[in-house]
């Protein structure tokens, strides 16, 4: 996983270095921005496993995002951005699953099996992230960004329930245990570090105000490999719609 991070940072570094060489004499210019937005997305697998049969409901809940970003113009067209942002990466989803493999461990007690029924997952994570991006001033007041983000999970919250179904103990050949309702809480199982691709676009629309949209695509599964409660990898994939103000 870390190799992606390393690669991206290296590429970015190389880009910066090139700019520095070519345009080191360009007059530098700092721009400060603050922004506020709303996150929509989810903690989701890249490709849905066939054990997920139906999404019954989805909501992003109260997922604000706000932050500060420093822009440094290297060149007429190019620049660099580094920021600090606070993201509520929330999701509330209810889905129907079939033969969904899970292993739950608490202290030294472990239960493993395949669940069929209804799953409700509520994620209310708060991340503190540092996006590092290359800027491209596309003209017509457009600003495009591409880079990486590094994030720290400040407040973990991942919980939910399984209901109206049954567990096959061990695997699908195990005995059936009917489950009315059982809750789970995987807060502390999540990794506290997240990173991924960060990209976005901004357009200056009124005086110093810009409308912006960006996307943070996590490249590292939120749960470590040692965690078996969910049988597929889940990534933070969130888009943000918002406004920013430059000064």
């Amino acid at each position: 996983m870390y190799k992606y991070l390393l690669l991206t940072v290296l590429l970015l570094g190389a880009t910066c270095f090139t700019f520095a060489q070519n345009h080191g004499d360009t007059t530098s210019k700092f721009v400060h921005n603050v922004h506020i937005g709303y996150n929509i997305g989810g903690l989701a697998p890249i490709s849905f496993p066939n054990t997920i049969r139906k999404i019954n409901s989805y909501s992003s809940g109260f997922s604000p995002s706000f932050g500060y970003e420093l822009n440094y113009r290297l060149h007429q067209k190019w620049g660099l951005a580094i920021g600090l942002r606070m993201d509520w990466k929330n999701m509330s989803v209810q889905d129907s699953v079939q033969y969904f493999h899970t292993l739950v461990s608490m202290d030294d007690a472990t239960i493993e099996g395949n669940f069929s029924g209804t799953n409700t997952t509520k994620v209310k994570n708060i991340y503190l992230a540092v996006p590092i991006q290359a800027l491209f001033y596309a003209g017509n007041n457009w600003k495009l960004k591409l880079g990486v983000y590094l994030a720290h999970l400040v407040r973990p919250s991942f919980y939910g329930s399984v209901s109206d179904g049954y567990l096959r103990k061990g695997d699908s050949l195990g005995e059936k245990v009917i489950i009315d309702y059982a809750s789970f809480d995987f807060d502390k199982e999540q990794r506290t570090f997240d990173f991924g691709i960060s990209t976005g676009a901004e357009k200056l629309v009124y005086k110093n105000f810009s409308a912006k949209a960006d996307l943070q695509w996590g490249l590292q599964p939120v749960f470590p490999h040692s965690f078996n409660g969910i049988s597929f990898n889940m990534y933070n994939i969130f888009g943000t719609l918002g406004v920013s103000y430059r000064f």
Partner: protein
Amino acid sequence: MRLTVLLFVLVLCLNSCIKDAPANPEADIESFEVDPKLLTGQTFIDQVNRKILLYLTKDAYAAGITPTITTSKNASISPASGQKINFNGSNEVTYTVTAQQQPNQKTYTIQVVNVGDWNFKFEKWLQNDADKYEYPVEDDLSTLWTSGNPGVALSGVSKDPLSYPTRSTTDGYLGSKAAEMVTIKGTALSSIVGIYLYAGSVFIGNFNPSVVLIKPLAATEFGAPYVGLPARFTGYYKYTPGAAYQDENQNIIAGKTDECSIYAVLFEGPERLDGTNINTSERIIATAKLSDGSAKANFTKFDIPFVYKNGQLPAANKNLMLAIVASSSKDGDHYKGAIGSRLVVDNLSIIPK
């Protein structure tokens, strides 16, 4: 704007990315119907040990039976449903269920339950493959007795016979082994569903894990067919209550001492009684209950007469069943007792009239 479109596509994808349903990986025998006239007790499908327990009349045993079987959806079974099976001597009858999702397969063994003399020494024990708990078997390896261990296994205790509340012990009265029951602390997982304690138990009957989370008392299905009428219930036991009695919410109740429970219940079958009605059912005909559940440092003999309800014997044509139940904590079925309470029973017998 392009990004907004991308986001929109992403959200759409949430539903459109649902894949085709997986082939059914399950291979259960879900029902096994035999003409009720051929049965002395209700058929039980032991999903834990993959056995079909049949309680057949002598004639049905001799002539063979033609069961109607249902399996998990889209699974196949061999021999097929509706095919006649015969019991010729030592040959084991097995059914193989093949799931729609290959190569999942499950083999069930038919066990024709025949309680010879009701005299149990707890000498032979086997270990469950997956969860490693012990269970007592008869000389012919058939299972008449079971325990709450399959339920405890669901709380994720470590896979070691000694981490379960019911197991064998060499500390027996006669022979090499006896049944040991120890009330143990619940696990971190069981505490989520409000279970803080598990009492050890052995009983004649079956454990049905499917209902253990929604209706735990119904998971213990008591009884096996009994021929004739019982007069007395005898055996040996010793008992050490644990230090601190706790209620179902883990509150220590000062001054209260745990008690063991040992009893036998004769009732009208062929349907079994379970933990919800073993003491209260209208179908109960007679009971023999140990009245003194207090500490006994050494093996102590008990000999308890069956007390028939209203002093009346049942009509001769009744389909009778008998259950024997022993537990290291009297109120263990309601998750009350003292952790560490230890009961050992040996040489349990039903003396007929």
